[in-house]
C-alpha cells in the first residue's frame, strides 16, 4: 500500500491509512451483508506486503450486523495464525460496541476507545512475530 485512500463500498466507505507498521481501516456509513465482502476483500488487498498489524475503527460507523461481526472474527483468526495483532476501536456507547458485546465476541477481541490506545497495542507486537 503506497498512500492513504478511501474506498466506497455501497452504504459504507473505508478509509485506509498506514500508521507506523499498522494498517488502520476506518469505516463510515453502514456495514451489512450487501457490502461486507467488498469491505473485507478491500482490507485484505491493502494488507498485502504489510505486517499483520490491523486496526479496525468503528467510531463513526452507524451500523454493523452479524455479517460484520463474522468479518471481524475472520480477521482475528487469520491474524492470530500469523502471530500479528488485531485491535478494534469501538468507544463505549457506539452501535458497533453494543453489537460486538451482544454477539459474545467482545471478550476475545482487543477493543479500545481511541486510536492512540489501539496503535499502542499493535506497536507492542515484536517485529520478529510479524
Amino acid at each position, binding site marked *: 500500500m503506497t498512500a492513504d485512500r478511501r474506498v466506497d463500498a455501497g452504504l459504507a466507505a473505508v478509509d485506509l491509512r498506514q500508521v507506523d507498521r499498522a494498517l488502520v481501516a476506518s469505516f463510515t456509513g453502514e456495514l451489512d451483508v450487501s457490502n461486507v465482502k467488498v469491505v473485507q476483500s478491500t482490507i485484505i488487498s491493502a494488507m498485502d506486503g504489510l505486517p499483520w498489524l490491523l486496526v479496525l475503527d468503528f467510531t463513526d460507523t452507524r451500523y454493523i450486523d452479524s*455479517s460484520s461481526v463474522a468479518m471481524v472474527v475472520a480477521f482475528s483468526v487469520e491474524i492470530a495464525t500469523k502471530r500479528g495483532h488485531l485491535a478494534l476501536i469501538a468507544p463505549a456507547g457506539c452501535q458497533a460496541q*453494543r453489537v460486538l458485546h451482544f454477539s459474545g465476541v467482545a471478550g476475545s477481541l482487543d477493543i479500545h476507545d481511541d486510536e492512540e490506545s489501539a496503535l499502542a497495542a499493535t506497536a507492542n507486537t515484536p517485529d520478529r512475530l510479524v
Partner: protein
Amino acid sequence: VLFVIGDVAGHGLEAASAMGQIRTALRVIALDEQRPSGTLTMIDRYLTSEQTPIFATMLALRCDPGTGACVAASAGHLPVVAYGDEPTINWIATGPPLGSGIRAKYADSEFAIEPGTTLFLYTDGLVERRGEALDEGLARLVEVLGTCERGSEALAKSVVDALCGSGPMQDDVAVLALRRLPIAPVFELTVPAEPARLGSIRNSLRRWLGGMEVDMQTTDDVVLAVGELATNVCLHAYPTLSTGPLHIVGRREHDVLAIEVRDEGRWRSEPSPSGGRGLPLLGSLGFDISLDRSEAGTTARLRVDLDADRSGGAR
C-alpha cells in the same frame, strides 16, 4: 436532509450565473460537510477566492425528518418562520453575507420541529419594501402565514400571492415551505427481499421509531434486530437468483413495540455470511422474538418492552 435558500446580490445573467456556481459548489461541499455552518464557511471561502466578487445571503438547514431535529446556519439571510400552532420567527444566529472577504465564521443553531410543523424559508423580495423597516415586512409575513392553512401544499403560492399581488415585482422572490409530515402510527413496508434494500429499510424504520419517540439506544437495537430478520429473508426465503416480497409491519401500543417481519417463501438452509451469528445475536438483545414457519412463509414477531432495562452489561 439539507435544505438551502440563497439570494445573490444583483440581477440578470451575472447573478444567475453566480447562483449556478454556488449551487455546484454547494453540492460538492455537502457531500462531506455535515454542519450547515461548515457548508457556509466553505462557500464563503470559495466566493472570496473568485476574482469577480460574488455576494450572497444564504441559509442552510439540515433536518432529520424522523426526529424533527434541525441544525441551521445563516449568512446574512432572513430568519426562518416556523408554523406550528401559530407562525413564529425563529431568530437563529447569523454571520455576514457570503463573499464579504473577511473569512467569516458561522455558527450552528439547533432546534426541533413537531410533526405537522411547516418551516418557511424565503428571500428578501418577499418581505422588503422601499421606505419600510424590515420588521414591518416580517410582521406582515407572519400575519399572512397565520391566515393560510399550514398543511396546504399551496402554502408557498398563497403567501406569495398575498404579499406580492399580481403586479410586477420590485425584486425576485424565492420561497421554500417544508412540512414535517405526521408519523403514521403503523409502520408498513413491502419491498423485494434483496440485500441492496436493507439500508433503506433501516432508514425508514429509524424515521418511524424517531416519530414514535423511541430512545436512540433502543432504536439502534430494534433496527439491528429487524435488520437481522430482514437479512434472513433476503438470504433464506427464496431460491437463489429469484426473489419475493419482504413485509415489515410495526406498531406501538403504549410502551410496547410489536414488529412483524414476514416472507412468502420456504426456509432454505443456505450458508450465511454471518456464519450463523444472526439468530444468537438476536437472542441476546433481550427482546421477545418468535418464529412461525408455514407453507405460506415465515413470520418473525418481535416484541419490545420500552420500559425494560436492556443495558445487558455493555460497556
